[in-house]
Every structure is written in structure tokens, then in C-alpha cells.
């Protein structure tokens, strides 16, 4: 143990500069990770903070990989001139110290990330699993790089440069995947565990993620144990490469095609219905239709439960009742709920009979409060849009899609009177909703349908604009709805109920979809709803399927 510590401390001194870069860049990166609006990061607005965010992230990952490689190679026993080989050390002590450092430098960011979840996302179950998955993500690239370096160092004697180049490409590939995940705010397949989604597909992906990690560890240990006999290293590396090729994970780390994304979106559909009252007379939310995993709903329910304001004006805790059986649903611990209530005290349900959706209200003008709440939203909060099913004019079979909107809020940032809300719809398609209120006290409402990957900007009472359209959904139309007056603005068809006709302006060049609602009087706009509907639904159903309430005060 003492000798292990000696090696450990020796390496700390040896790589103190690199460790400093690693720690410094990690601190800066995480600080910005917490404080930067994901909308800013995703938008790449070019501010120095965003640049620093990515630069520190890059420095963090590079220093992490370098640390792992250099630590392992520093006293690599394949080098018969290694100093420790003639010093009173056991190989186990040396390799343990090396791996210890590797684990420390990869576990600390995983711990930091998990801690952020403890603070900001209290509904997450199985934190150890979250930590493990995050650690695997952080450790994969550096450990594989170290294993590749050990193998390459060994193969240098017997193999040609092609093999080394292939191994190098593997390392670079890992780095690219890791950085891609980082940039996409996506930690790989395990990220979905954060949302309580543990389906068999993820476990399979996870296994493929863990396996190369374990094999990399085996390479390093075998190198120390058998002094990097090339056959062992090569055999394990070949196996590792095979797993990489066979695994879908690297491919999944990159943006999916719209087709595949749509398929994924279908996969995670679920529905909820407002049942009015349960047997005890308390309002209840029934959740059904989660195809693979009943735990999927745990996080959002736990987050939202304390915040629901009921239609009758009462403020009891929302009772979450398992449906159709007793499995899978629970609420967050009491302490968690208290914390959530403190932070998200102004997240409340709209009256389900009037408004389909939830509101985020700016509680007051204190910028600290406004900044605090989004941190929860940034991470993994999921909002539900709960429709009173009976009121929705849905066709049979589309309820699951239309009955509930899932909006994972990535970030909310307030600038002056503006509140930007970035939504993470479903990986990898993201929805950015920007809402402006005229004053901090305005209620900002938002929702989106699955095929709604657009930026919505509206200034209540002035106009409503779909802008920065990332992908125009070809079979969707957008409309303004005023339910109270049964009026719908269909911009494409120019047909409006109640004898109103307002032409839409769609600019294909800058992909802007504008509703010239100046023509609408203020009274009409109050209570109007921005609607995204599928063309096919519109053709067959006379009414909105999903809505974004437009509120002006």
C-alpha cells in the first residue's frame, strides 16, 4: 500500500502540469456548463463564454486522454529500462496506481455530473447507475486510448505502421465521438437513464460500451503482467476493434436521420389522461402507454407533482396513481419534493379545462430566482401537456400522439424581459422555443408537437412568428386558435373561422413563417393558441391537435 501510494504521488508530481490543465479546464467547463444557457451553446452565438465553453471542454478531453496514455506509458513494463522495474515494486502496485489515477481523473467529472443531478434533478432514480454510466462515458475514450497506446508501443517492434495507424484512428474516433456527445449535450446511450428510461436496447448499448472499457483495462493490466507480450495485446485489441465496428453506439452518437429520429419518437410515445378525480375524490393523473418501461415517467412526475395547481384552485400534491397496475410509478422523496417546490414553485398546471399545457411563470423580477429555476429545466425536466381527453377532437388511434406532449426543457434564460426556453424534444431532434413576454410577470407558455422542430417566437399582442426553422415539417400546418371563440387561423389555407381571413407569410428563403396577427384585435389574441397540426389531421379532423397557448396580458 505504501509503495502504491509512492507511485501514485510520484505520478501526481510527474504530471502536475497536465493535471492542472485537466482540473482547470474541467472547472471552467463545468462552471460554464451550469451557467450557460444551452440555447446559447446550441446556437453557437459566438460569445466569448460559448467559445470558452467549447475550448475548455476540448482541453478537458484532450488532457484526460493524454493523462491516461502518459500515465500508463510512463512506467510501462514493456520498456525493460523502466526505472521501477529494478526498484522494490510489484507490478500490481504500479498498475494499480496507474489505473487509480485514470479512474480518478475520469470519475471526478462523472461525480460532478451526478452531483449536479442530485442538486437539480431530484427525481433521478439509481444515482449509482447514473454515476456508473457517466463514468463509463468519461473513461471509455481515455482508457481505450491508453490501451491502444500500450498495444501500439508493443506492436512497434513487430508490426507495420498500418496497424498503428488503425489503432490511432480508433483513438481519434473515440475522441470524436466523445466530443460529439459533449457538443450535443448527450452522454451517449446511458444518458437516457437520467430520464429513467432503462430499456433493453439501452442495456445492450451499455454492454457494448462497457465491454471495450473492460477490454481496455485488460490490455493495460495484461501489459503490466506479461510485459506487453504482443500477442495478448494484439488479440485483445482486435477484439476491441471488432466490438467497435459491431456496436451501433458510435453511429448513434451522431445525429440521426429524420426518418430514424421519427421512429425513435414513435418509440417513446406515451399518453396520459386527466381523470378528474380518483376514488378518494382527489385529482389524479393516469399515465399509460409507456411501451417498454414503466419507469419512464418517474422523473417528470416527481418533478411536477408538487407544482400542480388544480382546476378548482386547490393546491394539494398531485397523486400519482399507477396505471394500469401498481408497477412503475412513484413520486420523489419528500425532501426532493420540498427542494423542487422551492425552486420550481411557479411551475404550475394550467387549468386543464381551459389550457392544454403547463405554464412557467416568472415569479418576480429577482434575476437570481429566474436563473435558478432554469437550472432544473436545463437538466432533464420534462413537462407534460395534459389534455382533457374528452375535449380533444381526436380520431381514434391518434390519442397517444396528441394526448400528451413531452417537452424536455434544456434551458431557460432570461434576458431583460425575454425568456428563452430551449426544449429537448427527443434525441437528437431539438426544439427551441423562444418566448417573449412584455414584462417579467408575464406568463410564458410553450408546447410543441413531435414534428415541431421550429423556433417559435411570439410577442404577445403583436405578432406570432415561426422563425429559424430548422426543419419544416412537410405535413404540418400552423395556425392560431382561439378556443373560446372557436376560431382557427390556418395560414396556408387562409381560412379562418368566424368570418376572419388572414393571410400567412411564409418566407422559404429564411424559413420564416409569419402570422400577421396585427390584423387581429387584441381581444381575439387573448387566449389564442398557436397550433401545430399535421396536415393529414387537419384534413380529417376539424380542430387542433396540439397547441401552444398564446397569452397576452
Amino acid at each position, binding site marked *: 500500500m505504501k509503495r502504491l501510494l509512492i507511485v501514485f504521488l510520484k505520478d501526481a508530481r510527474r504530471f502536475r502540469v497536465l493535471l492542472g490543465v485537466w482540473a482547470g479546464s474541467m472547472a471552467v467547463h463545468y462552471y460554464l456548463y451550469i451557467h450557460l444557457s444551452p440555447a446559447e451553446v446550441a446556437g453557437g452565438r459566438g460569445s466569448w463564454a460559448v467559445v470558452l465553453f467549447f475550448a475548455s471542454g476540448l482541453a478537458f478531453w484532450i488532457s484526460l486522454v493524454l493523462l491516461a496514455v502518459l500515465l500508463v506509458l510512463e512506467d510501462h513494463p514493456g520498456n525493460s*529500462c523502466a526505472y521501477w*522495474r529494478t526498484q522494490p515494486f510489484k507490478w500490481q502496485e504500479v498498475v494499480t496506481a496507474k489505473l487509480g489515477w485514470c479512474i480518478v481523473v475520469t470519475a471526478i467529472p462523472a461525480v460532478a455530473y451526478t452531483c449536479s443531478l442530485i442538486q437539480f434533478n431530484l427525481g433521478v432514480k439509481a444515482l449509482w447507475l447514473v454515476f456508473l454510466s457517466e463514468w463509463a462515458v468519461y473513461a471509455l475514450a481515455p482508457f481505450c486510448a491508453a490501451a491502444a497506446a500500450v498495444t501500439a508501443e508493443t506492436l512497434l517492434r513487430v508490426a507495420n505502421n498500418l496497424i498503428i495507424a488503425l489503432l490511432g484512428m480508433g483513438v481519434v474516433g473515440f475522441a470524436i465521438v466523445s466530443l460529439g456527445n459533449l457538443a450535443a449535450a448527450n452522454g451517449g446511450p446511458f444518458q437516457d437513464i437520467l430520464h429513467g428510461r432503462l430499456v433493453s436496447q439501452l442495456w445492450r448499448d451499455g454492454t457494448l460500451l462497457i465491454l471495450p472499457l473492460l477490454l481496455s483495462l485488460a490490455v493495460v493490466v495484461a501489459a503490466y503482467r506479461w510485459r506487453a507480450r504482443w500477442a495478448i495485446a494484439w488479440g485483445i485489441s482486435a477484439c476491441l476493434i471488432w466490438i467497435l465496428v459491431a456496436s451501433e453506439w458510435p453511429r448513434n452518437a451522431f445525429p440521426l436521420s429524420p426518418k430514424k429520429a421519427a421512429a425513435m419518437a414513435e418509440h417513446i410515445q406515451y399518453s396520459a389522461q386527466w381523470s378528474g378525480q380518483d376514488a378518494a375524490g382527489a385529482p389524479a393523473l393516469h399515465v399509460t402507454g409507456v411501451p417498454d418501461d414503466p419507469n419512464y415517467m418517474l422523473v417528470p412526475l416527481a418533478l411536477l407533482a408538487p407544482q400542480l395547481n388544480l382546476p378548482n384552485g386547490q393546491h394539494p400534491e398531485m397523486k400519482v396513481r399507477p396505471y394500469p397496475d401498481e408497477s412503475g410509478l412513484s413520486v420523489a422523496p419528500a425532501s426532493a419534493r420540498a427542494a423542487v417546490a422551492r425552486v420550481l414553485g411557479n411551475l404550475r398546471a394550467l387549468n386543464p379545462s381551459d389550457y392544454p399545457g403547463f405554464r412557467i411563470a416568472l415569479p418576480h423580477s429577482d434575476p437570481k430566482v429566474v436563473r435558478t429555476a432554469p437550472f432544473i429545466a436545463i437538466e432533464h425536466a420534462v413537462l407534460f401537456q395534459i389534455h382533457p381527453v374528452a375535449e380533444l377532437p381526436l380520431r381514434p388511434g391518434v390519442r397517444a400522439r396528441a394526448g400528451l406532449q413531452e417537452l424536455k426543457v434544456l434551458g431557460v434564460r432570461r434576458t431583460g424581459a425575454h425568456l428563452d426556453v430551449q426544449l429537448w424534444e427527443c434525441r437528437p431532434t431539438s426544439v427551441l422555443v423562444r418566448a417573449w413576454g412584455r414584462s417579467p410577470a408575464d406568463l410564458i407558455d410553450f408546447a410543441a408537437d413531435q414534428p415541431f422542430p421550429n423556433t417559435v417566437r411570439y410577442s404577445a399582442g403583436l405578432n406570432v412568428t415561426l422563425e429559424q426553422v430548422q426543419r419544416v415539417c412537410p405535413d404540418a400546418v400552423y395556425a392560431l386558435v382561439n378556443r373560446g371563440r372557436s376560431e382557427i387561423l390556418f395560414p396556408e389555407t387562409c381560412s379562418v373561422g368566424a368570418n376572419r381571413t388572414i393571410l400567412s407569410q411564409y418566407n422559404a428563403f429564411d424559413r420564416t413563417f409569419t402570422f400577421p396577427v396585427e390584423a387581429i384585435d387584441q381581444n381575439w389574441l387573448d387566449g389564442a393558441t398557436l397550433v401545430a397540426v399535421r396536415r393529414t389531421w387537419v384534413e380529417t379532423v376539424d380542430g387542433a391537435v396540439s397547441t401552444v397557448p398564446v397569452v397576452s396580458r
Partner: protein
Amino acid sequence: MNVIEAENLTYHYRRTNAVRGLNLTVPEGSVFALLGPNGAGKTTTIKMLMNLLRPDAGQARVLGVSSTLLGPREFERIGYVSENQDLPLWMTVDRFADFGRALHPTWDRDLELKLRRQFDLPGRRPLEHLSRGMTMKAALLAALSFRPKLLVLDEPFSGLDPLARDEFTRGLLEASTEGDWTILVSTHDIEEVERLCDWVGMIERGPMRIAESTESLLSRYRRVEAVNVPSFNNIVPDEWLDFERADGAVKFADRRYVAGQSETAYASAFGGAPVQVRPMTLREIFIAEARSSRALGKEVK
């Protein structure tokens, strides 16, 4: 008791025989010089003895333990300094000494300070900023300060200037007087070890050509020169090395010299011609043996 015993040690680098069938015995308390030309297999032999390389065949015992099983317990009693050693050059001399002190329970702080003064090592300077000679002295400092039972030096004089060599050797000599150490030093710089060693082994890829005490070696080797040789039967015994004959003069190195008997044999072989016999230095012995070995190798080929 022998500190090192090697039997039939063999090692190949792919198709090249680095060491073949080596037998080696290093008595306890001796200063054993392992001599041999470049590529003779000295470093490979030492690496096998230090468990840095695993022999392809044969076995060796170091401090009574199989060389392949040498572990922390043994390395607490073995000091190793090599020209090829990857020292932690980023460490300062102070840090390097601290590192060694933490590892060796028998570390002698007084000896360390004495050696540091003697070697004039700057404590706060990183090893990578030291000259090669100073670096080797630092390595020797770390290897000597825990008073090892066995000190193994692999080409310690390589790359050192004469002054550094002298200081290094003096330091080694002085240190060796302070304990009953066994020293195995491999080199081809014979002058440096001549005043140091009391046992000599000569190696050239195969078995040891010579392995005996310096005293015995110097006593049985003689340089012989005869002039005006009237007749010679052209029969050169095996023990006459480096034999040369020109214009009635003959000179060679006799490796089986026995006072009295050998003179009689010379007189008989050279027809009573005047013969001059003088002792040989280690260097001369080494060169004679090396030449003989190469000539033999050519003949075999």
C-alpha cells in the same frame, strides 16, 4: 557463498543469439567485472539477472532467488545502475533521493549526504538538466545509499569523460569500502575496472571465456616475445593467443603461464632463442582473448 549463479543462460533477439549457454558465478563480496566487446551480450545477461528479460533457456539465481522471481524483497537489497536506464529525469536530485529513501527501509541518510558532497550534486536541479556524468552519479547515489547487498552496474562509464570516470570510480571504491558489498559491473572500459575489480569474466555471446579472480588471471597470462628464432615447428598450442610471427620474431599471449615450466616450453619451441616474458594488463588480456575469439569464429565459419 555465491551471490549470483547462472547456468546455461540463453536469450535470442529474434534470430540473433544475444547470449548462449552462459554460466556465471559471482562470489559474495567480490567486485566482478563482466568484460566483453560491444554486442557481446553483457547488457542482455544483466537484464536477465535483474528479471528485466526472461531467459529463453537456462536459469539464474540472484541472492538465492530465481531471477525470474525477483521481487520487491530482493530489490530492496539490489542496487542497479545502467546507462540505458530510464531514470525519472523530471525529478530534482533532492526529489530523486527522497523517492529512493521512501522505497528502501535500509536507506543510510549519512551515506547519502556523504555521497552527495563527494559527487557535488546540485539538489534542486532536475536530473534532465544535469550532464551525463552527473546523472550517472545521481543514479549511483540512489543505488548506494541504501547499502545494497548487490550492486549491479551496466556500462556505467559509457559516455563519461575521463574526469567523470575517475570521480565515479573513486566514489564507487570509497563506498565499497564501507560495506561488504558484491558488485557486478559490465563494461568494455577495462582501465576503469582494473583498479576496481577482483574478479573478471569475459563474455562474447557464448559461454564465459574467462571467469576467475583478477589475481589468478593476471598471474597466468603473460606476453611472450622471442627474437631471432632459428626454427619453429609451426605448432601453436591453444593457450597461445594472438600469435604473430615475422622475420624470425615471435610474439603471443600465453594464458597458461606457469613460472619455470613455461620458460622451458618456450625454449624448446623456439630453439633456445631469447624469450622475453612480461605480465599483461587486463586490457591486453581482453584484447588477446577477443582477437582469438574472433579468429576462432572465422575458422569455424
